[in-house]
Each structure stands twice: as structure tokens, then as C-alpha cells.
């Protein structure tokens, strides 16, 4: 147990130390002299700031979209559907997790393509699909992570005893009021738990944007392009600080809400 935990943390430490080094631009050899060149480049050049903000934006939109879609679905599943239907629905929401992430992305690529399903369906309405690009990426990511949002919310709602809701009703609250004042506060940690997944998964994703993103790039691509392609581990490691810091911050903020118990 110990060696595994430690191996993971140790490897993170190794990687982040490399962020302070640089590579010889011609041979690619690692120069182990501490320098903050990488961080300076990341902060000073506007393109990195732009891409970072863009990625944060995409991650946020994906989270919001998923939350908006997942909440009513989860409410239906937990409180309205019959017990038998409930099991079916949970299974139905879980099944797509087994369909390969890549294939789902590829399915969206064919759907969004010039001669794909989306354009074919929208044509009679005189509209056109978004094609490849940032909206397509956001759409696809929101699609991919939806089950990760639905399930924690469902679990959270499930834990709310019906008696509580009936009591609220007895005290005179309408359904809307009950939802706003009783259900929402109780399900909030679960909502946040789901958001951890959608947010971090979106922030770290570099593959989907390559499949449906057209010419756009997200921050994770910068990390990947520098490690997988340019063999510049120090720069990639420095860039990796960004999502890690964001997520660790998010997790610390979120700990108070008790979301971590709801995962």
C-alpha cells in the first residue's frame, strides 16, 4: 500500500522538479540547472494565458451544462420513478461509461462532420451544425461526463428521506419551494462532487479537442505537445502546474461543503 501511494506521490514530485530545469534546444538533453525560465515564459506570453482562460471557460461551461441536465434527470430517477424503473434508469445512465471514450468522441466527430447526422437533421430547419471547434468540443465533453454528474446527484437525492419532503409539503411549501429550500441545500455537496469530475476531466482533456476541436487547442494540449511531441519535459511539467494548482484549489475549497464524502 505504502509503496504505491508513495510511488505516485514520488513520481509527481519528480515531474514537478523537472519544471525548474530546461532542455538543450538542439539535442533535447536535460539541463539540470534550476531556472524559472519555463514559468516566466508561461506567465509572460499572452498565448498561454489565453489558452488557460479558454480551458477554464470550457471546463466551467461543461460543468454548468451537465449540472443543468443532470439535476432534473436525477430528481426524476430518485423521487418520481418507480423502484423498478429506477434500477433500469441507473443502469441506462451507467451503460455508456462502458462504450469507449474514444469511440464516443469519434461518433460525435462523424455526427458533427459536414455530411454527418447533425447537419442532415438541421438542414430542413435551415440551420447548420456547429462543425468542429470549441462549441463542438464543449458539447462532446458535456456529453461524455454527464453520467459522472448524474450518479452522485442521484445518490445524494436518494439519501434524502421522503419523509422530510412530505413534512415540508405538510408545512405548506409548494414543490418549487421545497426544492429550493430543502432539497437543493441537501444535494449541494453531491452537486459539487459531480462538478469535481466534470471540471477536472474537462480541464485535463487533450484528446477530444484533437478529434472534434478543429483548429482550436486547450491547455492540456500545450502540456501534451510539449511532452509527447517536443520532448520538452521541463516546459510540460511547468505547464502542468496550472491544472494541478487549479484542481487542488478547487478540492480544498470544496472540502468544506462535504462534497468529498459524496464521491
Amino acid at each position, binding site marked *: 500500500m505504502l509503496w504505491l501511494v508513495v510511488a505516485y506521490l514520488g513520481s509527481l514530485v519528480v515531474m514537478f522538479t523537472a519544471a525548474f530545469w530546461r532542455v538543450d534546444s538542439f539535442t533535447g538533453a536535460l539541463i539540470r540547472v534550476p531556472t524559472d525560465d519555463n514559468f516566466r515564459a508561461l506567465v509572460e506570453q499572452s498565448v498561454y494565458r489565453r489558452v488557460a482562460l479558454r480551458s477554464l471557460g470550457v471546463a466551467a461551461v461543461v460543468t454548468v451544462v451537465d449540472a443543468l441536465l443532470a439535476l432534473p434527470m436525477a430528481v426524476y430517477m430518485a423521487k418520481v420513478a418507480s423502484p423498478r424503473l429506477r434500477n433500469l434508469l441507473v443502469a441506462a445512465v451507467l451503460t455508456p461509461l462502458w462504450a469507449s471514450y474514444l469511440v464516443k468522441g469519434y461518433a460525435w466527430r*462523424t455526427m458533427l462532420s459536414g455530411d454527418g447526422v447533425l447537419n442532415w437533421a438541421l438542414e430542413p430547419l435551415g440551420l447548420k451544425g456547429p462543425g468542429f471547434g470549441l462549441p463542438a468540443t464543449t458539447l462532446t465533453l458535456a456529453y461524455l461526463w454527464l453520467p459522472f454528474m448524474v450518479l452522485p446527484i442521484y445518490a445524494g437525492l436518494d*439519501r434524502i428521506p421522503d419523509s422530510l419532503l412530505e413534512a415540508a409539503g405538510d408545512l405548506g411549501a409548494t414543490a418549487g419551494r421545497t426544492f429550493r429550500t430543502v432539497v437543493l441545500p441537501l444535494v449541494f455537496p453531491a452537486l459539487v462532487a459531480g462538478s469535481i469530475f466534470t471540471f477536472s476531466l474537462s480541464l485535463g482533456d487533450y484528446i477530444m479537442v484533437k478529434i472534434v476541436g478543429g483548429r482550436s487547442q486547450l491547455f492540456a494540449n500545450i502540456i501534451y505537445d510539449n511532452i509527447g511531441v517536443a520532448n520538452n519535459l521541463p516546459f510540460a511539467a511547468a505547464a502542468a502546474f496550472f491544472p494541478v494548482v487549479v484542481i487542488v484549489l478547487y478540492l480544498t475549497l470544496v472540502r468544506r461543503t462535504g462534497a*468529498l464524502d459524496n464521491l
Partner: protein
Amino acid sequence: MTLSRRARLALRLVMWLGLAVIYVPLLVVLINSFNSSRTFGWPPQGFTWRWWQATANNDGVRRALVTSVIVGLAATGIALLLGTMLAFAVARYRFFGRDVVSFLVILPIALPGIVTGIALNAAFTAGGFPFGYLTVVVGHATFCIVVVYNNVLARLRRTGTSLEEASMDLGANTFRTFALVTFPQLRSALLAGALLAFALSFDEIVVTTFTTSPGLQTLPIWIFGNLFRPNQAPVVNVVAAALIVASIIPIWAAQRLSSESSGGRL
């Protein structure tokens, strides 16, 4: 909750709409696996079993599938063992740094896969470990442990220690208690965790890319390499369609089992 008929209707609508959104792309994949056109123009021009036959004969797919299954089972096995142990430690004992541990454990799943991948790659390279099955399994185990840990922890917190203490009072030693009292309570949580861990490992591409060796391909790696290839893309589609269909069984089973404990939980 007393909901008006309109509200129930609206919710039902959103539910089915959501399910439609979820399943339409999967249906597209399924239909395309029979599409006679190689490049999936829509609407499909013809119907054919050709791709299913080609997939059955495809060597690369078979090997990748076997690799994925082996890796998945290994990672899930490790995760079950270590995740349960860790959950017990956190739930039952107080020790220095307990909060930190429960925070750290989330990291593999919260941090982007690419970070985990690069870190492990750098560490393995620096340590001189040969890349292969072991490195891939280790990479997968990091996030599989989290999944099992969460499930078991939640269950332990809910069931409490009273039954165990009662059993010990009645004279059973630690192992007997575990086998006869604790384990049965945990069983469905373990199963749900194992299934999810296996699913995550089976579908994992990012960390695997950084921890595998040239000859070793898991199914997602194979898919990624063949995704756009004109002659292989239909095979990829078939693989995906087959996975979707095949996955209904374990999901259903997991659902039945964890339904005793009021619904699925990640």
C-alpha cells in the same frame, strides 16, 4: 415530494430527452457498424455484416482485447485489496495525517490523466524500470484504488461498528469477524467498486499511452491508432458496438446488487 402533474411530466420529459441525447451517438455507432460505406456518410447507403466478420478475424483487436482484460483484472484486483485496506484505515482508525490521506487518495482521479501519465513515465524512466504490463497496471491501479476506496468507505460509514463489536464480544477473532460479519456487508459495495474500476481501466487511454511499451496495446490504444484509418475504422465501430451491447450485463448485475443499498454510488 408532492409534485404537480405538470412538474412530473416536465421531469419525465427531461429524463427521456437526456437518455435520448446519451444514446443517439451510441446508436449512430451501432448503425454505422453495419454501414456499407467505409467512411460513414450519413444516411447510410447500405447494410452489411462485412465489418463484423472482419473484426472477428482481426488479430490486432483480439490481442488488444485480451491485454485490456488482463490489465483491467490486475488493476481491479490490486484496487480491491489496497482500496479496502485504506478505507478501513480511514474509517476505523485515527492516525496522524488521516485527513491528508483521504485528500491525497482523490488526487489520481481528480488530477488530469496527462499529469499522472507524465509523472509516472518520468519516474519509471528515471528508475530504469522496463515498460510493460507492470507499469501499465500500476498506472491504472492509481485511479482504480480511489473508486473502490470511495465505495467501501461510504459503506463502512453507514454500517457502523456495532455489528463487528457484537461479533467480537461473542468471541470471534478479527479474521472470523471480517469473514462472517464485515465482508457480507461490504460485498455489494466491493462489487460496485470493482465493476466501476474495471470499466475505468478498460477505457483508459491517457495514462496508458505514457506507461506502455511499443508492443503492448490495450484496446483503447488500438482504437486510437486505428480510429481514422479508412479500412480499420469500421472495425473500430464494430468493437465499440460490441462493447456497448456486452456491457449491459455487468451493469445490470451491478445495479441489482447495489440496489439493496439504496442506489448506485460512484
